[in-house]
């Protein structure tokens, strides 16, 4: 108990380590599950944020992914299926000083919890929503989810899935997201920095983690993680940089009006002399595009036509809901004075009996 008490606000910046964020509970995911990677990255990130341990709260719904809070030695709530954003919104409004994280799955966030997901995003409330997307319901043992691809055979689609999948990023953008990112579970180079950006974002930060479920949907992202193929299949987004991919950046995205096309980049290794288009013709990634239409376009990219974009789709500034909420209290006090119970009770139209 004593070393726990160390983690008071004063000492936090210097004293916290990754170990401080590991709870005493045995981690109960399947060996090899992609969820472990996120856990490790978050446990690594939090001590760096200069926030006292007690000021973190993790909220989740139900699913393998939603077991996450149990493994963090922070405040945590394993709530009910799909409702984590709503619980977390209440907590954040009540206690805006806390760093509130929602860890969720593709079923939890996008099936049963779809409404709370889009509304949290719409309000731009200060939650960090991390969605472990394994394109399957893991905990209930293998039914298709709203991100399962068409034609996939699962326990509830033995003849092939006919539910068109959501692009989680597109849905978030459609709901007005101010921060949207996508990253592969095992891509440590991207995962840490993106989580750090999300942590720092005011308002709702949404991070989709493409997570491998080795039991029910193994290899869903095999091509994306396979060192041999992945450079051809993924498009790493960097703000202000042209949209390039391929192991030597030899390919890129050019826009004809609003229609994207894949082109070769002139001068890149492997591109024959005289072929390809100039680098300057490629579309340049812009996280801060005010209408988010580039982000939306990228969110539609899917194999086999296009490489899958990874990185930060969008990051724009907008007032956080909890700040606007706090401002209401000021307005109310300005307009009505500080609340006084006695005069409230005696308010309205009174009469006195002597």
């Amino acid at each position, binding site marked *: *108990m004593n070393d*726990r*008490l160390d*983690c*008071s*606000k004063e000492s936090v910046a210097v004293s916290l380590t990754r170990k401080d964020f590991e709870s005493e*509970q045995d981690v109960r995911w399947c060996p090899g599950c992609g969820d472990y990677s996120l856990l490790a990255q978050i446990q690594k990130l939090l001590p760096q944020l200069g926030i*006292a*341990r*007690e*000021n973190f*709260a993790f*909220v989740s719904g*139900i699913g393998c992914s939603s077991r996450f*809070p*149990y493994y963090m*030695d922070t*405040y*945590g*709530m*394993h*709530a*009910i299926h799909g*409702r984590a954003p*709503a*619980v*977390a*919104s*209440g*907590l*954040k*409004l*009540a*206690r805006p000083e*806390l760093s509130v994280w929602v860890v969720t799955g593709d079923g939890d966030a996008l099936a049963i919890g779809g*409404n*709370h997901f889009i*509304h949290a995003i719409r309000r731009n409330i200060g939650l960090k929503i991390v969605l472990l997307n394994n394109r399957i319901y893991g905990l209930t043992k293998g039914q298709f989810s709203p991100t399962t691809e068409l034609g996939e055979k699962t326990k509830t689609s033995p003849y092939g899935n006919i539910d068109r999948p959501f692009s989680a990023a597109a849905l978030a953008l459609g709901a007005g997201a101010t921060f949207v990112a996508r990253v592969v579970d095992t891509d440590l180079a991207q995962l840490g920095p993106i989580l750090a950006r999300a942590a720092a974002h005011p308002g709702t930060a949404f991070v989709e983690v493409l997570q491998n479920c080795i039991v029910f949907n193994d290899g869903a992202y095999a091509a994306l993680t396979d060192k041999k193929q992945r450079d051809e299949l993924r498009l790493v987004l960097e703000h202000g940089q042209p949209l390039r991919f391929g192991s030597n950046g030899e390919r890129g995205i050019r826009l004809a009006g609003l229609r994207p096309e894949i082109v070769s980049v002139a001068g890149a290794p492997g591109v024959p002399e005289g072929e390809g288009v100039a680098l300057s013709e490629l579309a340049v990634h812009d996280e801060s595009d005010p209408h988010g239409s580039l982000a939306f376009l990228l969110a539609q990219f899917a194999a086999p036509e296009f490489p899958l974009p990874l990185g930060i789709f969008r990051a724009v500034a907008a007032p956080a809901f909890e700040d606007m*909420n706090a401002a*209401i*209290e000021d*307005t*109310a*006090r300005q*307009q009505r*004075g*500080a*609340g006084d*119970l*006695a005069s*409230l*009770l*005696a*308010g309205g*139209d*009174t*009469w*006195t*009996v*002597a």
Partner: protein
Amino acid sequence: MSGNEQVATEPPGALAPPERHVEELERVVIRFVGDSGDGMQLTGSEFSRVIARAGNAFATHPDYPSEIRAPTGTLFGVSGFQIQFAANRVFTSGDAPDVLVAMNPAALKTNLGELARGSVLLVNSGAFTAANLARAGYASNPLEDGSLDSYRLIAVDISLLTARALAGSGLSKKEADRCKNYFALGLMLCLFGRPIEGEIADVAERFAHIPRFAEANVTALRAGYGFAEASELFASTFEVRAAPPQPGTYRSITGNQATALGFVAASELSATPLFLGSYPITPATDILHELTTLRNFNITTFQAEDEIAGICSAIGAAWGGHLALTTTSGPGMALKTEALGLVTMLELPLVIVNVQRAGPSTGLPTKTEQADLLQALYGRHGECPIPVIAARSPADCFDAALEACRIAVKYMTPVILLTDGGIANAAEPWRVPDVASLPRIEVKYRTEADGFAPYARDEFLARPWVTPGTPGMEHRIGGLEKDFLSGNLSHDAQNHQRMVEVRAAKVAGIAAELPPLVVDGPDAGELLVVGWGSTWGAIAEARRQAEAAGIAVAHLHLRHLNPLPADLDEILARYRTILVPELNLGQLSRLLRERCLREVQTLHKVQGRPFRVSEILARIKAISAGAEHE
């Protein structure tokens, strides 16, 4: 005042009796009815205010259509407001009206059935146009065909008289016509011999932002009053003496207002910020409106995307240390049940207000009912005990809200507070309590890490309230079964049994601290009427009238429905017959049968309306007569 008086736009002639006199009455019931656009709700509440100021006791009941603005003149567009006032204690807004003020044919048609022969019927004859008569489905004009002969009919062309009074005011015809409710109010104030000065000042204030309306309404009010006086419209006027109640400052309050104020008080008395997560639904929305306006207090209101998010956000806020609430009505309650399971597992304080309305499903959204009691007790999967309390009258909602908060934080539990559409919108006078006299509510967050276990319990079986942000006690909670002490998830069979039992014991234990039940009337004997919630007024009045008629009958009204009070069995055992009047098919009856293993008689009514006193009284009399015959 005699027979059938027909008054057009001129002071009455031959038909008026030569002399006016003052009839003194103990109590009067007035119903104002008109088109939704006729402003009857306003007229009714203004009238109540005048009554209140004079020191009379009163109770009101608004009854409006679920359409926002139904087409003019239709039967379903009729809006009504009933008030009963008396010298002292008034228990209900009254059964049948003694005076019916009907502003158009549709209003007359839909309400006449409840008017006793010989009662006063004041009608705006100007609205009895061919078109309006047709819309209301009248083949001939009832003002002329003699069908109203058995009432004390006073027909006044209020439309025309108002228009005349406002000629030259610069108001358009339509605008002027909207003032006719103030003309009608003027008539009524004259009929009851009330001064209009206070009301004039009020109108001026209410419409201060649109001075020409303020002026016009005052003109109409004066015109109505003046017309009635000058024309000696009423053969007799009525007087209802006021017997001053307990000294103090009074106000008129509706159930929803009182509920909201109760929560503000609970927040202040516990020095704990209030959080309301809610989704609008009739008839609960006004509580949200009220608290949203009071954000100058330590209050956060959050209009969620649905009822599930409403309660879940409140759970998040409760975890964060706020005094958390969610308010709703039947269909919304249904949606909250999964989260009620969660918060029962989390053992966090939370008050859930269900302003019951007529069901099932969407039912009759603007009508009242008490049919959600068993849902409140049993409407969750698993063994999921939650305390349930109910408010009995508009003003009582204040106390009930305080009590709900007290139990929630003391026992670290969700608490369901049941009110209903009947009391939510009805108003009665409320003696404003002295803040210093209100009981503090003790809230303790645990901050001491030594010896801390998330599910260790105090003598009331409550676990500690530790909010995120408290150093040294980071822990995890959730909806899976948890270890008896650590709260970590546990699949252990015995632990589950123990947890199920301790959650049940905690709630059952509340019974131990409830004050002894109070019975009105004889403390043993033939008949005990047991009620809960909004039937209180009707039962109390029926009991009073029965007593006056020489029938000994006792009345027990339950605030606590779960757990039921410990002395209940003993009290019931003292009476031969138990009668349970309920606005459902007999839900408390089931609980009492199960609890006490005895027959109870049920009196049920499921018509979207409160009981009439007469309905309960008739049953009491029948039982009493039956007992005599035995």
